[in-house]
């Protein structure tokens, strides 16, 4: 242990002579000299956590000193603070003879005193809490005086502690006398507890299950109601648009068309090609067992045209475009852009919802047809490479197996899906809150509702098709 003292003296002499000429470290010698060699411990305080021994060495080996060096002798701490950064920059030199934050309450009949000493730094993690009941037993006390004795560094940590004492005093009708505190501390204490009253947040109340269900049902009905209003307004505006009686800007429709069409081609291609290839793989494995490999074209063609292409394209568009619509409109909501539209008198339906829905409804059938073509190509690639079927026989088989009515059915479905995705995502965006978190929530909701809605609607179509014999 004695070695530490010697090393410290060497260190500080070296610093004062060479590395840090700006620091006046002469005071440290008598401090160290006054310590007994035995029980001398060195700790380096980093971020309020005392870590001993090794951190000192690593700091030395890096050629820099940072933090507070604590030389402890029993309960007596002497802090020599050498704040330096890297090798050359000196921001502040500060020395004191501070201890851990200590406080003492001296009851004295009617006049009590609360004395604080030591180092009171909020982020040190050593600030004690003044118990709210700490003054309850001082029934005779009328005044409580705050005093500071040998206080080293202090910041809001000290004020927080004194504030706790002040609150406890007020609860016990004890007058606080802070005139002995520095002006800075008195100013901060004066700030506390002031300010306009704020309404407390409503406490969370327990609800009956029936109330919960009722609330949810009402919310769903209300949602359906507003959705139907928006839907009818959109249809009406869409019907009036060709006659120039809706305030739809061509430029908005074109921008939306580009976003919902050409921009989505790549992802639609990838998804449908892979779906076609996967169907061909699975079908080929089974059909080869019955020497019916050539019918893989029938399987891929029918499955894609009737179900997979419209559904997968719609799911892709729900995730890509529906989510984007909801996020965009929710962001506009947060930025009061929707309010601005309403105030100016521009119908939200004409300006936002109609272009978005129109572009989706126009582009989705084309994307569906394109998806069919790419998906059948995917099946063709697998069929020709795995089963040895020629391209011409695959195409012939597909044309024979897939009648035009199947395309018509898929075409109608894709239009319905487009309307569903467009309406729900715009509606979800419009009812979003005004925070950035609400943007994320509405985008997620739009994607989930879009995907689930597409699959549910496809089931309805399947039942209808069965009943009318398609």
């Amino acid at each position: 242990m004695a070695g530490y003292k010697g090393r410290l003296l060497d260190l500080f002499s070296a610093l004062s002579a060479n590395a840090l000429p700006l620091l006046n470290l002469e005071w440290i010698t008598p401090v160290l000299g006054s310590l007994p060699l035995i029980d001398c411990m060195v700790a380096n305080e980093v971020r309020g956590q005392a870590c001993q021994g090794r951190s000192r060495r690593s700091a030395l080996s890096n050629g820099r000193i940072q933090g507070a060096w604590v030389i402890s002798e029993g309960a007596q701490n002497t802090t020599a603070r050498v704040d330096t950064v890297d090798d050359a920059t000196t921001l502040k030199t500060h020395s004191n003879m501070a201890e851990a934050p200590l406080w003492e309450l001296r009851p004295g009949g009617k006049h009590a005193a609360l004395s604080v000493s030591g180092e009171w730094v909020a982020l040190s993690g050593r600030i004690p809490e003044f118990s709210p009941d700490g003054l309850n037993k001082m029934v005779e006390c009328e005044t409580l005086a705050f005093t500071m004795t040998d206080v080293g560094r202090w910041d809001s940590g000290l004020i927080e502690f004194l504030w706790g004492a002040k609150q406890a005093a007020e609860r016990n009708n004890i007058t606080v006398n802070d005139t002995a505190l520095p002006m800075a501390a008195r100013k901060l204490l004066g700030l506390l507890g002031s300010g306009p009253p704020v309404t407390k947040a409503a406490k969370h109340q327990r609800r009956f299950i029936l109330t919960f269900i009722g609330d949810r049902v009402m919310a769903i009905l209300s949602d359906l109601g507003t959705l139907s209003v928006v839907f009818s307004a959109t249809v009406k505006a869409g019907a009036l648009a060709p006659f120039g009686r809706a305030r739809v800007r061509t430029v908005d429709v074109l921008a939306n068309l580009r976003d919902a069409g050409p921009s989505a081609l790549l992802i639609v291609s990838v998804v449908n090609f892979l779906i076609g290839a996967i169907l061909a793989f699975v079908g080929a494995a089974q059909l080869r067992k019955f020497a019916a490999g050539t019918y893989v074209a029938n399987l891929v063609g029918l499955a894609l045209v009737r179900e997979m292409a419209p559904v997968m394209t719609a799911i892709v568009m729900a995730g890509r475009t529906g989510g984007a619509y909801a996020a965009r409109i929710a962001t506009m909501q947060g930025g009061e852009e929707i309010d601005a539209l309403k105030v100016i008198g521009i119908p939200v339906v004409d300006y936002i919802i109609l272009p978005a829905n129109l572009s989706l409804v126009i582009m989705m059938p084309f994307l569906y047809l394109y998806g069919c073509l790419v998906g059948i190509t995917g099946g063709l690639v697998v069929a020709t490479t795995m089963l040895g079927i020629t391209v011409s026989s695959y195409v012939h088989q597909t044309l024979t197996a897939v009648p035009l009515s199947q395309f018509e059915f898929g075409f109608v479905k894709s239009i319905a899906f487009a309307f569903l995705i467009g309406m729900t995502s715009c509606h979800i965006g419009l009812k979003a809150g005004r925070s950035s978190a609400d943007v994320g929530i509405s985008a997620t909701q739009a994607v989930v509702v879009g995907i689930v809605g597409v699959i549910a609607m496809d089931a309805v179509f399947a039942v209808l098709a069965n009943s009318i014999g398609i």
Partner: protein
Amino acid sequence: MAELRSPDSDTGPLIVLSGITLAFGPKLILQDLSFTIHRGSIFAIMGGSGCGKSTVLQSMIGLLRPGSGLIRVAGEDYWACGEERRAVIDRRFGVLFQGAALWSALTVGENVALPLQMFTKLSEAAIYRLVKFKLSLVGLDEAINLRPSELSGGMRKRAGLARALALDPDVLFFDEPSAGLDPITSRRLDDLILNLRDGLGATIVIVSHELPSLFAIADDGVFLDAETKTAIAHGSPSELRDTCRDRQVEAFMHRERVPEEAAVTL
């Protein structure tokens, strides 16, 4: 950790800008800008709309790297010291953004607690106490569980200030603190800023064009000009009002029209 707070007697230079040029891509905002902010002062960056006040602030808090020139913080080259070192210095800064920039997904209390959770090893109980304390300093302790969207403009500003104070910063930056506030709330915020400077010993940098606030609290400053794209006057707002003879500054300080504008009719 850098100590940027002034010891009682030290009023030397804390932040020094020398020959700064700032631009957004090809668009030049400010050029050859130099000024010094002293420890413990309340320094105002003044000027008309669009003169680059907030841009200067961005360059001082690490959001916009100057094209040329030097920014020294406590003698250290702020932009050349490396990202890690800059992050250490940034933690000694507290910033109140123009719109408060509270994280909307968190409550007011969580907004103040987040820096403490990220950068200290304090216990949850200690953090809660500190959060209550900081919110009480700005008169918002009752709003600890409210969301930012439930606060008024003035309350949002005060909550942003409480968050800026979370780590006991040595330098506080305010971007248009009074913008959008009524005169009473604005005056209360001015008093709060003064008390925080006196109480915490922090250096305060304010970007503003609210004259009553500037006259009330700032003791030093610089005046930026959108036309010349640099500083055209240095001094406290009161000094500039009483002694500066520059036409732009006079017009700004006395709310007059400059000759070119006088010809424009609405």
